[in-house]
Structure formats: structure tokens, C-alpha cells
């Protein structure tokens, strides 16, 4: 039978390279470390809605790969999700559920509900039995009120008034457990979230850099990117490096001018009747 050419696949995971990778593992080769978001992610419910918070450090083993990454992902205009765990998994799973929610909004003609996002996430994660390593804090406000949930990589969920996830979750939870109370105002909620994230940033090695905050209330969402920058870079020398032109030894140079592509004009003359 003639093998079809490699057409773009219809979606889902492809397991083509698993046999080869298993062969390499058997030969003693180690799997590479994936980029993780070491992370402190938090959420809490205040009187008018939900506040989500996250740090901004992405790690690859012990090295900081990204000093200012975004961990608060968009799910729907009224629902946001913070992600911890393997970075590729959190990004892929939140993007996928966000698209599914958009299609659902078009089909139903209604604003998305937080429990819809929750069910879509937990069923996907459960079906992969924890191999899709995404730990999420999902929060939003819909017609039924403000909701805050945590989703674990194996697919279990909790519904809580305040929640923390990630390697810095213990540091952040200690702040919440001492200072949280019901009926916080918006300013108090943001302050408490920022304090909890800072506890994670300064005490947990897997979290660092800046604080991102997202405030969701009925009818309005505010994404405060880099709400606090408690780790400014102070060690830059004012002069910087300056290299003399021609300092690097060059063996050969090839310069190609870029041809600008010809633009075709749409329309043109109208046809005669």
C-alpha cells in the first residue's frame, strides 16, 4: 500500500517517536529537563469577585529561562487561569480550553461559566492520567457569582475561598491563613494577593521576579501585568560593553539584498457592461 504524504494531522497527540525515544532511554540517555514554571500561583474571593496572582519566573532545571513570563492565562473575558507545572502543558491546555469555551459561547450565545471551564480542564487532565503535568488555579465571575477552583494534574478539583499552588504554595498559604477573612474589599484583596506572591518569590527558589495580578468582577476584568517589581536589576555597569567595529575576526562575508515582493493590486479597471 502506498504511504500517504505527511499531511497536517487533525490534532491530538502523535506517538510516532516513542519507540525511538524508548530505545535511547534503554541505551542510558537521560531525558532532557522540560521548562517548568516553578511558581507561586494564588487566588482569593473578595466581596465583589476574584483576585488571581502569580510570580513571573520560568525555570529549566536550576537555570532561570525567562525572568518575566506570563502565568495568568486568558480563558474567557470573565475567566482567567493561573498555571503551574510543565510550561508547555499549562499553555497548551489553557489555550485548548479557551478555544473550546469560545466555540461554546458561539453555540449557546451566553457568557461562559467557570464550572464549564473546570469540567473541560478536569476531564482532559484525567484522561491523560496525570501525564499532562498542569496544576491550575481557575477563577472567574459569571451569572452565578464569583468562583475559585484548583485543578490538579490527575484531574481532581477543589472549590475554595482562597487557594495556592506551585512550589511556593506553602509560603503563600501561610500568608493567606493568617490574614484572609471574608468580605475583603478590592484594595485589601489585591494587597493580600501581592503579599502572598512576594512570600513565594522571596522564600521559594522556584519562584521569583515580579508579581502579576488579575482582578475579575462582574462585567469587568483588570489584568495588572507586573503589578509589583520587587527585584530590579541593580548590577548593570553604567558604561556597558562597547566593542570596537572590526574587533571580531571574520573569515568570510556574504551580503544578500532583500528583494521586496511585488504587490498585486486588487480590483483594477471595472469590466465594461
Amino acid at each position, binding site marked *: 500500500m502506498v504511504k500517504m504524504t*505527511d499531511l*497536517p*494531522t487533525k490534532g*491530538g*497527540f*502523535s*506517538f*510516532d*517517536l*516513542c*519507540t*525511538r*525515544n524508548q530505545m*535511547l532511554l534503554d541505551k*542510558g*540517555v*537521560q*531525558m*532532557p529537563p*522540560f*521548562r517548568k514554571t516553578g511558581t507561586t500561583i494564588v487566588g482569593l474571593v473578595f466581596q465583589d469577585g476574584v483576585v488571581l496572582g502569580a510570580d513571573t519566573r*520560568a525555570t*529549566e532545571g536550576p*537555570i532561570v*529561562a*525567562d525572568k518575566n*513570563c506570563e502565568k495568568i492565562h486568558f480563558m474567557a473575558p470573565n475567566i482567567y487561569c493561573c498555571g503551574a507545572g*510543565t*510550561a*508547555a*502543558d499549562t*499553555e*497548551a491546555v489553557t489555550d485548548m480550553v479557551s478555544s473550546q469555551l469560545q466555540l461554546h459561547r458561539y453555540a449557546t450565545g451566553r457568557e461562559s461559566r467557570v464550572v464549564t471551564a473546570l469540567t473541560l480542564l478536569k476531564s482532559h487532565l484525567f484522561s491523560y492520567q496525570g*501525564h*499532562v503535568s498542569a496544576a491550575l488555579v481557575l477563577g472567574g465571575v459569571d451569572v452565578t457569582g464569583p468562583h475559585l477552583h484548583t485543578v490538579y494534574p490527575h484531574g481532581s478539583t477543589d472549590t475554595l475561598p482562597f487557594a495556592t499552588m506551585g512550589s511556593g504554595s506553602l509560603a503563600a498559604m501561610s500568608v493567606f491563613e493568617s490574614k484572609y477573612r471574608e468580605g475583603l474589599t478590592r484594595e485589601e484583596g489585591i494587597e493580600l494577593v501581592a503579599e502572598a506572591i512576594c512570600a513565594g518569590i522571596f522564600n521559594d527558589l522556584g519562584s521569583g521576579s515580579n508579581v502579576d495580578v488579575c482582578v475579575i468582577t462582574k462585567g469587568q476584568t483588570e489584568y495588572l501585568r507586573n503589578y509589583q517589581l520587587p527585584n530590579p536589576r541593580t548590577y548593570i555597569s553604567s558604561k*556597558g*560593553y*562597547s*566593542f*570596537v*567595529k572590526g*574587533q*571580531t*575576526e*571574520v*573569515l*568570510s*562575508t*556574504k*551580503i*544578500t*539584498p*532583500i*528583494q521586496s*515582493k511585488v504587490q498585486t493590486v486588487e480590483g483594477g479597471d471595472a469590466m465594461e457592461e
Partner: protein
Amino acid sequence: MSIFEYNGSALVAMVGKNCFAIASDRRLGVQLQTVATDFQRVFKIHDRLYIGLSGLATDAQTMYQKLVFRHKLYQLREERDMKPQTFASLVSALLYEKRFGPFFCQPVIAGLGDNDEPFICTMDCLGAKELAKDFVVSGTASESLYGACESMYKPDMEPEELFETISQALLSSVDRDCLSGWGGYVLLVTPTEVQEKILKGRMD
């Protein structure tokens, strides 16, 4: 021994003022033996978009062939070149598709987008995108490259200065890594021209 250390590689991309530069080392090795000193790691997708692939060399070449195939299909359907941001999403999706049996390569994507705005990004081998505004690094020499770029990088550099900076960062970092080096290859792209330069480095 990690799979990424089988062939050895060093890749870096930096943003300048309406231009970008992407540089790689030239060694291809089989663990500690050097097999080639003119190995190409930076590939052209179209005039204003380049991708560098570090890690296992065979996976890098396969990834490149798949990406060129997808881009050519895109060109036929859309009758235009892909924007860098779109291309980055394509690479991320192709890598994540193989989540449980991944390609062992880490791409560095650099391109000029709309209004000659330079765009760079890197990903891990599963497709987790990292968009940076200054520089991105990849390969066995990545730890040294992080340090060298952090100190040498300045924002809004002109093309000549950007070339010197990226070359010095690359050469000084590969000197601290046994598995990469044997010269350097720098590609500097401005809105009007593309400059490819081969650098003289230590051959050890």
C-alpha cells in the same frame, strides 16, 4: 549523558534597532569526537524569518524539513509569507504534538514582523514559548550564553554594534563549553539586506 549533549550546539539571537542577529557555532560531534566543523544550524524560512535548531542534529534537520513543508503549503494557500508570531505558534504546536515522545531540539526563532519590528523567541523541546525583548539562547553552551548576553546586551543597538556584541557573546561562551565552538556563523538581518558572516574562533 543527556540527549542534548550528544551533538553539542550553541545558538543565540539578539534584537537591535529595526534589525536582529542570529548566531550559531559550527561544530557537529558524536559525543566527544568532532565530525564536522561547518555544520549548519540556522535555516532560512523566508527572507525575513530564520530558525536556529539546537539539540540532537537529526531531529533538528527533520524539524526544519517539516517546517519548510508547512510554510510552503501556507505560501500556496495564503499567497504571502508567514509572520514570525504565526510561525512561532506553528513550531510550538508541532513540538507539543509530540508531547510524550518529543523531538530533542530547542528552536530559536528570529524574524522581522510588521513595520520591521524584530521578533525573537525560543522554546523548550515541548514547545513552551518564551518571547523575549532582548535576547534568547539555546544549546549546550546556554548557561554561559545567558551570562555573556546579560552583561553585553544593550537595547537599540545599530547593526554593526549588534554584530560585534552577538559575536563576542557567542565566541566567549563557546570557549567555556567543550561540545560547541569550532568557529561561528552570524546572520544579521536588516529591512534592506541580509549579512552572513563566518567567524574565526578557537578550533578546540
